[in-house]
């Protein structure tokens, strides 16, 4: 089972990969509408939005948590 390089989500089957393509290393939640992978800034924003929406963090705390999580993911190795 692959893990999304951009958010860390496990990808069990093809439908969880971007564009239903198991060759893609990133998931449907990290893909733009055209199927390409979100940029660092886009992912940081979308991950923080997700944390605010599901866990109710203050926006700044959510951004910090998202950044901390992204530090450990291969897609963003060169971004810190």
């Amino acid at each position: 089972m692959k893990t999304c390089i951009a958010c860390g989500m496990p990808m069990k089957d093809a439908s969880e990969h971007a564009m239903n393509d198991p060759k893609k290393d990133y998931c449907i939640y990290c893909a733009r509408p055209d199927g390409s992978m979100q940029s660092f800034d886009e992912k940081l924003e979308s991950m923080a939005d997700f944390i605010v929406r599901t866990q109710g963090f203050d926006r700044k705390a959510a951004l910090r948590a998202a950044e901390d999580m992204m530090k450990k993911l291969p897609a963003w190795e060169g971004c810190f």
Partner: protein
Amino acid sequence: MSAEQGKRQLQKEATRERILRTAAAVYSERGFATPTNVITQEAGISHGSLFVHFSTREDLQISVLERFAQEVCDELHDLSVNNGSVEEMLRAHIGVLKNYELFYRNLVSETALLPRETRTLLVSVQSAMSHHFGTAVEQGQRNGTVKDLPLHMLFNIWIGLLHYYLQNGDLFAPGSSVLEQCGDELANSFSKLISK
């Protein structure tokens, strides 16, 4: 790599694995503040050997927690119920946490005293759960079976309830697993509370 070097590498990996497993068991039983010498005694290795594999106590704690977070996230993902009800999702959540009950209880009790990275790992575990929780709740809200309350409030009320029971397990289920003893009641009561 020579055969001898290969053997040494395997031994090194086996020792690292033994330290990680022992540390996880010790943290479950005695909490994360347990001195490293207790871990090395339990693992049957010298104290110095631990620091060959982990530069500091915090490094060991983070490595154990990273493994825990990865395992729990994978298990939550495997158990996510497609088109399932909120109650089914909650039961799946409890089912996963049962495997790590003491470890998880100590983690949520002691997180403020642990390195900041630990907090991030806990947030990543809760994010994985909140994703599946949110899917079930939003589906229920769309089909009119779940109350229209903000997702984060519903999730935090569930986590608050769960953690309260875990942290007071000695009162709710003395000498046994609080998730085993009270898990069904928690999932059932919470899903009734949020149902229309």
